């Protein structure tokens, strides 16, 4: 190997090694992501997601627990990913809860309106009879 080729190898190898070191180094704890996931979970709970979107709410809780466990093991990348997934699950649970509540209200109003309409129609036909 010539001295020139050694220089070339060094120029390539050193940045590569630095890059690898940076890639393998631990990221910071995902404090913000975990806090956002926790807030999302609390919002989903208070919205009633355990009733209207049980699967999504459960998934959000499980992912949040896993994120906390990963953070405890200093596996911050996994913790970040799980915290974001938990937040997305909570957001979906809230949207489904909103839809579920609206559907319930729609069904109730349909029944009420049908009853009132029938009441009015029957009364009108009773009055029309001699």
């Amino acid at each position: 190997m010539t001295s020139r080729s050694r220089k070339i190898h060094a120029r390539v190898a050193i940045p590569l090694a630095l890059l690898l070191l940076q890639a393998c180094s631990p990221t910071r704890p995902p404090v913000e992501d975990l806090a956002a996931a926790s807030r999302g979970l609390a919002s989903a709970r208070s919205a009633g997601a355990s009733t209207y979107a049980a699967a999504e709410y459960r998934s959000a809780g499980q992912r949040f627990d896993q994120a906390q466990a990963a953070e405890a093991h200093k596996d911050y990348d996994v913790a970040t990913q799980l915290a974001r997934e938990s937040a997305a699950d909570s957001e979906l649970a809230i949207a489904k809860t909103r839809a579920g509540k609206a559907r319930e209200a729609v069904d109730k109003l349909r029944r009420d309106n049908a009853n009132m309409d029938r009441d009015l129609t029957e009364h009108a036909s009773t009055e029309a009879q001699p």
Partner: protein
Amino acid sequence: MMRSWLPHAVLVLGFVAAGNAAARDDEYQRLSDRFDRLAADPALGQRAPAQMDRARAALAEFKEAGRGDRKQLLYLVERRIDIAQAAAQAESLESERADLQRENDRLQLAIARRDAAQARAELERQRLQSQIRAEEAESARRDAEAARAEGEQAAQAAEAARNEAEQAKRMAAAQAKATALAKKEAELEAAVSGNAPKPKPAAKPKPKAKPKQDASGG
């Protein structure tokens, strides 16, 4: 030797890379198709614009991401599309609820008006019945008053008749007494004058004779 297997290795790596890229594109295509179907949905496509934008942005990020990032993004992109769909459904249902609520208000108003009309009719019916009863009571009261007045009048007439009869009775008794006294006086006069007539047994009182006109000489 090395030169002989190197092209093959490069070729294999090229195939593998091409296969992975194709798989990634399939994944993207699946997500993109799903999002496009949602966006084209006539009932949901125009709703929840903020969530739709976030899903669209997540999809674009997924498309541009490298292999490692894509793995992490896949779940989040799926969820973003789920969220957009659920939010659009919620919005659609809330709009329907608002329409139904307006219809509900209209029906409640119609029923309230009907009930009020019924109540007014019932009130009028009762008012008429009450008026009829009052008129009947007044008529009965007048009849009773008239009957009472008539009864009083009859009682007064009876009392007058009774009084008259009593008076006649008293007058008859007085007349009888005067007749008896006159007779007794005549007897006493006769006794005093010596021609005392033999006292006769008390005769039955005769009814008063009607005075004769020719006997009076007048």
